[in-house]
């Protein structure tokens, strides 16, 4: 398996508080890489380090060695990096504008694109998330008129139009109903053909459904990794207890 991201000895502090302390993880290309762990365990922070959203929070200090496509993360231009590592958030966050403008947004920032090319790219991105048929006649409608699940797929489309190498998803279904959740899980499985997916979840059944490679994060460290979702030889009793709770 080809590694697209390697993280070694990552440490993140917010003031005196250690959020991540000495974390190692490999992210494999064209796989669904899942990170499972309890709330407050550092999952979201880990994602925010990868597209350097942490740069925006002056109180947070990040140390460690992270390489993306063989190049140190800090050597990337931050804006450039965020186009290559897209992100979908826990709650759908469409911008207050039309469906079309939401999807076109990132591309418009990046380049002058003719109307016809933009139309095509927007359609393409919406098709990739299976939203196009639902909204094709209403592209000018405000994005807030969509259902929660549709909004989340819109946010995925918005990230995909930039053709990122990696798509990070931070508990993307946690605010959605079961049907919408199922659709997004199916979508995730399909995305890995073109993209590397990093999925953060605290839902073990979701991990079982979609994960190719699963990492268990606990207290700011990866304590176990496995192909599939079965973890063997865990010694720490707290971690065992946590896995037990997840299984229930």
């Amino acid at each position, binding site marked *: 398996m080809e590694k697209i991201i390697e993280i070694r000895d990552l440490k993140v502090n917010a003031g005196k508080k250690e959020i991540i302390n000495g974390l190692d993880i490999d992210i494999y290309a064209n796989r669904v890489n899942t990170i499972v762990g309890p709330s407050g365990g550092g999952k979201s922070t880990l994602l925010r380090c990868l*597209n350097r*959203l942490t740069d*925006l929070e*002056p*109180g947070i200090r990040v140390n460690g060695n992270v390489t993306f496509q063989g190049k140190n993360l800090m050597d990337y231009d931050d*804006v*450039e990096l*965020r*186009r290559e590592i*897209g*992100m979908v*958030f826990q*709650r759908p*966050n469409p*911008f*207050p*504008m*039309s469906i079309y*403008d939401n999807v076109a*947004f*990132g591309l*418009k*920032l*990046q380049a002058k694109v003719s109307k016809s090319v933009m139309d095509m790219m927007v359609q393409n991105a919406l098709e990739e998330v299976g939203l196009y048929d639902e909204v094709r006649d209403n592209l*000018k409608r*405000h994005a*807030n008129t969509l259902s929660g699940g549709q909004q989340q797929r819109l*946010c995925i489309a*918005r*990230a995909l139009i*930039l053709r990122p190498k990696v798509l990070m998803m931070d508990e993307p279904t946690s605010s959605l109903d079961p049907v919408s959740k199922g659709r997004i899980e199916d979508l995730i499985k399909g995305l890995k053909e073109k993209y590397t997916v990093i999925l953060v979840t605290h839902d073990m059944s979701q991990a079982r459904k979609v994960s190719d490679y699963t990492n268990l994060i606990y207290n700011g460290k990866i304590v176990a990794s496995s192909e599939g979702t079965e973890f063997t030889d865990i010694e720490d009793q707290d971690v065992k207890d946590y896995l037990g709770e997840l299984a229930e």
Partner: protein
Amino acid sequence: MDTKNKFFNFFTFLMSLVPALVLITILAFVLFYAWPSIVFNGTTFFTSYIWNVGISSRPPVLVRGFLVPPNASFGALLFIESTLISSALAILIAFPVSFLVSLGVEMYLPARAKRPLVSLIELFAGIPSVVYGLWGIVVLEPLLLNTIEPWMRSNMYFIPGFSGEVLTGSGIIASGLILSLMIAPIITSVMVNSFDSAPKEIKQGLVSLGATKWELGKYLATNYSRSSTYGGALLGLGRALGETMAVLMVGGGIVNVLPSSIYSGINTMAAAIVAYLDSAIGQGTGINLSALAELSLFLMVISLAVNLLGRRIAGRGALRGVENDKL
């Protein structure tokens, strides 16, 4: 309900009417004083720039039912124009500067430095305007007269209004600069607060799509914070329109000549009211005082209109943000 409660209810109801009552009283009072001037001057008040208090050593004459000194005529065009030009220049300077400052504060400063800096900016708004005026006379005017305005004249003469004669250093540029200094803190503090309060999810979403800090700021200013952006600008404009002491000191106190270039002296409505009040009070027919009251009334109406308009625009902007937006 016991008596105490009834009284309290009645009293608070009464107090809730106080702001409206105060506004109406002031308007009525000013209108009452302005009435003779309104009738006497008619529309020439707005079309003429000649402010002539007449010959008070000669017996007054009766015009349209009012006794006035012979030759008296009151045209406020110069004062109105001065006010609008200096305020417009102030906004033109203060708005972009405030935008850049608030963007810088929001994007580049760590949280612990942000608060103190915002407090410092807000402190600027509390400096008495006479201090700005003094600084304007002592420092700014000589600088404008000897260096900046001659430079502008020889290098920017092709812009309409920039080729006139440099005379004193006081006038439009000095007033505009001083006013912009006075209103920039207000606009900046409104903008910083609104950038700060924009939803974090949206900010992170924008940045995650590769928006630069500049693009993020531009987006916030034209969308989420649009109401505050306009609101701040109009608050600033409101202050600039009514600002008195500083522009009285650096405006030039021009009478009966309309500004012909950007280097011209001016005389704003507020400044004129203060400058002519003393002599008007002593004048026997009372028409001078009445003319100043009409000027006050007009200034008040403009200021109120700016505020109302600001609210309307800001309100509509907030609604439009939900319909359709382009970056």
